[in-house]
Every structure is written in C-alpha cells, then in structure tokens.
C-alpha cells in the first residue's frame, strides 16, 4: 500500500465535519505554524518539499510564493483555484467533497506564510453542492476560532471566503479567474504584470490549485524534507490522479510520484486494467496534454519504463512524450476512434475560447469544422495538412495558454495516428457509422521511433 498524505482519512466517519477532522489530526499544521514558526520558516519548508503546482503547469510552489510582492500597507491575497474544468480531471472535487477542512487548513497555513489576511476559493458553478459543503466548513472553522482575529493568540488574522463561478473553462486560467472573481467576464489578462505583483483588485496575489494548498498541510506537519523523500528527482510527494475512460476501476487515486505507468494502469490497486479490449491510447494529464499511443505510454522512446512523474511523462518532448498535467488520466480501448476524439476535444476548445485572440477564436472553430467533416466521411487528404497548419499557427500566438491547449491534442493525434485520419478519407462509407471501430478495430502501423 502506498502512503497517503491527503486521502489518508477520506473514509473515516465524520471526516467532513470539523470534529471528525480534528479527531484525525486536523488543524495541527495551523497550530504548528502559528505557534512555533515564522512565515519565512513555513515558506522554507514548502521550498524544501519540492512541491510543484498541482493545477497543471507544475510550477514550483515555494518559488511562486517567493515572488509575492510586499509593498507596505497593501493587502495581499491567496486565491485557491477550484475551477477544475480540465476534461478528465475530478480530483479536487473528491478532495473538497470528502475532506473540506484540509483545504481550509492549508489556506490558513499558506496565508500565514504569504502574509495574506483574506483568501478566496473560486469554485466552478457546476460544483454548487460542494460550494455549500465549503460554506458550512468555513462557518464551522470560524465558529471554532480557526478563522477570525488573532488566531490561537498569534496576532495573525485570517478569513476565508468562497465564490462560485458560472460555467466557463477559461476561468481556470489564473488571470481569467481573477477577472471572474472581480465580477467580470472571464477574459485572461495580458502578462506581465503577473498576479504576484498585480492580482486580485490590483493587489499582490498568489493563485494555487486546491491540491497544492492541501499538500501544504502534510508538508508543514512532517517537514519539507520528509515530503521530498517520496517521489523521484523533481517530482516529489504524492499526486492525486483522477482516472477514467476505458478502465476497469475509474476513480481518484493518490499515488507516490514515481510508480510505473504500467503499474498504475494494470494494478488492481489503481485502474485495474483496460476494459474488455486492447489499449489503444492514453491521455495522461487532462485533455490539454498530448495523446500518446499505448506503446509510448508504457515505454519511452529510449525503451525505458515510463513513470508517473512530470519528467518521465514528458520524456521525448512532444515527439514521443506527453505531460502529467492536472492528473486527469483517461485511457482509450481499440473500439475508440482517434479522429472522433480529436474532433470532440476541439469542439470543447472552440466552445470555451474566450474570443479575445483571433488565432484561438477562429482557429479552434475552423479545426472543429474540418475534423467534423473528416470524422463524418467528408474529408479530403489535404485536410490533414490543413489541420496541422492551423494548430501550428495557434500555438504560441495567443494571450493565454488555452490556444496551446487546443493545438496540442490535434498535433499529437496527427503525429501518432495520421494513418487513421487517412483511413477516414479513403473509407468514407465505413466511417459514417459513429461506432466504426467497434467491430473491426483500426490497426495502426506502429512507427519505429528512433531510440
């Protein structure tokens, strides 16, 4: 059994409430930090832990915190990103639903380190029922003195509020999130200035994912060095993976970073193997990361066992690798069609583009149209090159990374599954049936990748 730092108590009775949470050691990190540590010392532990942002980009959390500007007399904010709308990702939901207090505890301890007296949780609107759970947990924490003035007699004041969104993937991007929190449309801001200098209400702000802030609790309790003992290289600690697609046991799992991809997919402790048929492809970190064929999921191009770490999953770059991303893992069996999946991904990004930049706004819609016609047996061979061209022109040419996120699934699908796109063009009648690969799976010519 692997260690669990976040989900250790997720099935304990009463863990959703303050009493049950306390009974299982909850709020110790607040006691430790406020009574025995300085804000700098807390930051130091987070740096030592090697913790990297769990929202998708994997940026070192301690480093991000150290960028927080500290102009005198200006309030600072911590904002927790609970927007969780990257397709395939449902780990924050699980954590907040089961153990809401771990998030609040992490926010108090983190805010102490950052010198923030107010923090906000921005939660996606569809999670309204979890918003209620958080509201109740905040009330409980306030009534018990974990929030408010002079917490534990330390002189540190802190309050937590929660704000609900209203359905917009882009509000997971941190500057769009801040706009939305200010009551505006979710249009990403041009950076710089970065939120650490000018964030919420123009004040220095740190935006972190739910899981990142929850991980601060075990880091402060046990020390950053202890945390860094788990994992490999720069991938330290544990990671929540939400697993879905054609696997036998979908769910949220806390893994030690560094287990093999093979073990994660096939072990009964985790995904329990592929449902029914052969594995075709994997999206390991949410819809924005490149899709990779089965053989490249198990082994890197150099023939080494692929590991569930930031580095190993991206080994080989986009030519043969992918990314750990948000930990939104989904597997495809051989009944699935990659063209259909790519069309669906693209439809998603076209729908969610905020519309500010022309390459993203126009490019996603255009790609969707082209993919739709290929999938429905009306494509031309040139369409494949056209798609390649459009995605290249979006990537890197937009205000926020949603443009890249829309380009990569298309690029990786063409890179690895070009013959399947061609099949659609050559066999228009066969692909008219939406379940065209259910009876006879498409057999891909595996590319020989140079070691």
């Amino acid at each position, binding site marked *: 059994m692997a260690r669990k730092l976040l989900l250790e108590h997720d099935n304990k009775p009463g863990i959703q409430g303050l009493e049950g949470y306390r009974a299982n050691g909850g709020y110790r990190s607040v006691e430790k930090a406020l009574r025995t540590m300085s804000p700098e010392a807390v930051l130091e532990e987070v740096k030592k832990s090697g913790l990297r942002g769990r929202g998708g980009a994997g940026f070192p959390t301690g480093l991000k915190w150290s960028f927080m500007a500290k102009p005198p007399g200006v309030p600072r904010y911590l904002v927790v990103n609970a927007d*969780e*709308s*990257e*397709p*395939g*990702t*449902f780990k*924050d*939901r699980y954590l907040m639903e089961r153990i809401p207090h771990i998030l609040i505890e992490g926010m108090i301890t983190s805010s102490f380190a950052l010198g923030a007296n107010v923090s906000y949780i921005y939660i*996606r*609107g*569809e*999670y*309204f*029922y979890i918003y*209620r759970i958080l509201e109740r947990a905040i009330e409980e924490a306030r009534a018990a003195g974990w929030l408010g003035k002079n917490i534990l007699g330390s002189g540190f004041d802190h309050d937590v*509020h929660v*704000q*609900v*969104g*209203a*359905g*917009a*993937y882009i509000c997971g991007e941190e500057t769009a999130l801040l706009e*939305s*929190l*200010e*009551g*505006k*449309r*979710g249009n990403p801001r041009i950076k710089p200035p970065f939120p650490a200098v000018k964030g919420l*209400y123009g004040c220095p702000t740190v935006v972190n994912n739910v899981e990142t802030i929850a991980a601060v609790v075990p880091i402060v309790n046990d020390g950053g060095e202890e945390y860094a003992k788990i994992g490999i290289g720069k991938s330290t600690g544990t990671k929540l993976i*939400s*697993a*879905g*697609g*054609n696997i036998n046991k*979908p*769910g*949220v799992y806390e893994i030690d970073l560094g287990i093999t991809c093979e073990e994660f997919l096939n072990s009964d402790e985790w995904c329990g193997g592929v449902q029914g048929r052969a594995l075709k492809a994997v*999206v390991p970190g949410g*819809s924005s990361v490149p899709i990779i064929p089965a053989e490249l999921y198990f082994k890197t191009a150099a023939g080494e066992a692929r590991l569930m770490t930031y580095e190993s999953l991206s080994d080989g770059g986009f030519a043969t690798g992918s990314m750990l991303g948000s930990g*939104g893992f*989904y597997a*495809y069996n051989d009944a*699935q069609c990659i063209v*259909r*999946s790519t069309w*669906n*991904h693209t439809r*998603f990004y076209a*729908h*969610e*583009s*905020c*519309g500010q930049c022309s390459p993203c706004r126009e490019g996603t819609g255009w790609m969707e149209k082209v993919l739709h016609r290929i999938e429905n047996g009306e494509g031309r061979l040139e369409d494949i090159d056209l798609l390649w061209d459009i995605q290249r022109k979006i990537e890197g040419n937009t205000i926020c990374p949603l443009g890249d996120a829309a380009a990569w699934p298309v690029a990786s699908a063409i890179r690895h599954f070009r013959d399947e796109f061609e099949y659609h063009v050559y066999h228009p009648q066969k692909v008219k049936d*939406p379940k065209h690969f259910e009876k006879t799976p498409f057999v891909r010519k595996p590319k020989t990748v140079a070691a």
Partner: protein
Amino acid sequence: MASTIKAITTTEGVAPFRFSEAGLAECRRLIARYPAEQSKSALLPILHVAQSENDGWLSVHAMDAVAEVLGIQRIEVFEVASFYSMYNLHPVGTYHLEVCRTTPCMIRGADDLIAHLEKRLGIHVGETTKDGMFTLKGVECLGSCGTAPMLQCGAKYHENLTPEKADSLIEQLRAENKRQNYTDQ
C-alpha cells in the same frame, strides 16, 4: 464563449421581477464577502440567486434588478450574464437536463445517453419539450468523468447512467413536477 443564440433581450410580455426578502438577504450575505468598494465581485453568485427566483432564467427585468442591488450599470450585468454558460438568457423547462458530452464522457458512452434522451423526450439537444417540462442541453466536462455517462439537473449530479436509470429519473422528475435550481440547498 457561452452560447447566447436565443437570448431574449426584450421586456415585452415578460413577467416583472423582484427579489424575495430571502433573496435580498442572500445578496447582502454575498456582498459582505468582499472589500467595501468591491461589491461587484458578488455579481456571479447574485446572478445565480436571481436566476433561481425567476424560473431558471435571466430576463432583462431580472438582470436590471441585479444591477440595482449592486449599484452597477445594466450593461455590466448583461456583459457577464452572456459570457457564462450556466446563465440562461431564455426560458428553460422545469427540469434543465445538462448532459456532459466532452471526450472522457464520450469514451464511456455519452453519445448513446444523449441519443436515448432525445428519443425518449422527443426533442433534440437545445430544445424543450412541448409541455415545458424538460430542456435538454449538451454541456462540457462536469468533473464527473469517472462516473460517466452523467447529467446534471439543478445542483444534483446523476452519474453512471444507463438507459434504464435515465428513464426512471425522467419518470421520477415528471411525478415531482418541481423546478430544481443550482442554488437549492
């Protein structure tokens, strides 16, 4: 961008709107979460309150009432309401069935679920049944990919759906005949 194709921007023939006392109290509770000069921050949650008190959609009257509560321009409210996909700018059925159609759900059978619901209700995605009972909508990943296929109705998630389960849900809702809102406790 949220689809706003059917936004009703006229006030003609549309029922007037006033927040209930409880609704106004909720607005005040929400505004108190933000610094004094930043009450506009409460716009998104207050729009949810208005939508729930206006039969599940935001009429111009409802948006105007929100502008008044916050002391902001009416256009600022419309700008925001038209951006986010959970705000309905046109009337919806008693039950708004929002089926996730994004890739991870598609892999686990969302297309079949949508086809089944369309057949069962006799409508297409985006339409409302003649009796005004059900509106069917295709939405993006709801963070429920491990329990797919699924749909959301009001604040409730209905997960691991089969055609049989979807049918009994529809029967049950029809019998209850009571609107479900996101803001339901």
